[in-house]
């Protein structure tokens, strides 16, 4: 599949999600009433949009989806897509405009490791499109992402996810004195924000992330010149089903080293 086609499909799905949400007049209220139903409906609408986008183009693919598992679309899969219809679904159901749809592409149809992903597209609900092609760079709205943003910051801005699990690294409290903390609620989109320099870093110490959550965003961050490791500083690898991932993503080696050393102090 061509990169342009993947990007088009990502945009189509994002638009479908957007109109689905727009079709519900008061989506603040939906949350408090039946959050699970709403999530499922939104996700299903996105899954259907992916299937039609592929079939309309005469494409056949194996799709590994966070929501409904593994399926074959069409007759003879030529490639595999790792699909997360909505990353940041709590935000989506709460009316918080920070979530995205994420698709990673590999020519392999049997197994997908992080290294096998050759293209990725992430479309956020604000209308931004991030995409990347292996060895060809990462792009935001068609423009190559390079270097870091202009301007200075008093401290690096880092999205931190460390809640809800028994173990909080002791060094985290010390580390939080040195950074401006955010936690925006969509790991994949946070990673894109690191890729384009909006955020300086992301860290998730919970060991709850799975391969399919971050396969697209990992390629985008990597192609933007970023560094992605687990909290011990080791490169993240494994296949799409791998679970229990912790992560640190930055574009600055110095910041990365500081986070790794504080978390392992």
């Amino acid at each position: 599949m061509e990169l342009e086609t993947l990007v088009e499909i990502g945009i189509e799905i994002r638009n479908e999600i957007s109109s689905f949400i727009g079709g519900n007049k008061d989506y603040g209220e939906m949350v408090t009433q039946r959050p699970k139903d709403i999530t499922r409906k939104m996700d299903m609408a996105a899954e259907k949009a992916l299937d039609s986008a592929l079939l309309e183009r005469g494409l056949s693919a194996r799709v590994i989806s966070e929501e409904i598992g593994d399926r074959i679309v069409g007759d003879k899969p030529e490639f595999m897509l790792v699909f997360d219809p909505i990353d940041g679904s709590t935000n989506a159901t709460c009316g918080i405009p920070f979530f995205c749809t994420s698709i990673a592409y590999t020519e392999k149809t049997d197994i997908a490791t992080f290294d096998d992903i050759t293209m990725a597209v992430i479309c956020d609900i604000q209308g931004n499109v991030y995409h990347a092609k292996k060895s060809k760079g990462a792009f935001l709205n068609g423009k190559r992402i390079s270097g870091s943003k202009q301007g200075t910051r008093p401290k690096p801005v880092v999205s931190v996810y460390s809640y809800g699990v028994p173990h909080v690294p002791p060094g985290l409290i010390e580390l939080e004195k040195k950074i401006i903390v955010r936690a925006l609620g969509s790991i994949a989109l946070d990673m894109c924000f690191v890729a384009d320099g909006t955020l300086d870093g992301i860290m998730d110490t919970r060991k709850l992330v799975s391969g399919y959550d971050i396969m697209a965003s990992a390629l985008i961050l990597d192609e933007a010149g970023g560094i992605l490791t687990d909290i011990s500083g080791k490169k993240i690898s494994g296949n799409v089903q791998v679970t229990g991932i912790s992560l640190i993503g930055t574009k600055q080696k110095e910041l990365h080293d500081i986070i790794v050393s504080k978390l392992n102090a």
Partner: protein
Amino acid sequence: MSYYELCNTVAQAVEKTVLPLIGKTEAKTGMGMGADGTETERIDKIAEDAALSVLESDGRSMRLVSEELGEKIIGSKPEFTVILDPVDGTFNAVNNIPFFCVPVAIGDSDLSDTRYGYVKNLVNGDVYTAEYGHGAFLNNNMIHVSSRSYFPEMSFLSYSHHPYAVPANNHRVRRVRIFGSAALELCYIASGIFDAFIDMREMLRVTDIAAGKLIVEEAGGMVTDREGAQLETPLDVKQRLNLVASNGLSHNKLLELV
């Protein structure tokens, strides 16, 4: 002009001047020190000027308490005080992180006598309002705080420091988010999508929280300082506050955390 119309006109004027600057380098050109003791970014100054011209053309005499100019008396005999943060979440706005808003409150002389609160989310246009004694509203629909009180089910918005209690207690709750716009985050408590907001950094100003505090209270929630006392403080942008806001059900347990 009703309080709603006044606040809404201010917010629209701010929105018009601010949106073209979002994420642009020129938005963060330093403009010197503001009355609140922090650097004024260009976007704040432009937003405040836009708001001021709306208020000056209103015709009524009023006092304006605003983040950059501090205090300004319009006319000769102020009928009320307008408490304004021209852009709450400035850092987000200039860095293109989609969480920033305009909070406007109508009060008198103390934070505790706010009679009207208005917050407009500049990213998606949502408007939160509350009038003292008459409930809180999101886009004209009545809102109410959540009913969760069991930590493992609760979603927190929390800022640490003094004494770093929040990261240390992170494991106890379902979800922690940090968006970087206190006024908007208080509205998320009011609408029930989050259960508690904690800010122990001693950095909040009256302009950040006056509107959101009333909106939370009118939605059935509680807002106190870290000791559990009512927030009573003169409307002065130099004041610095810490704050715990919740649906009220878990408030005492939250105070133990901080």
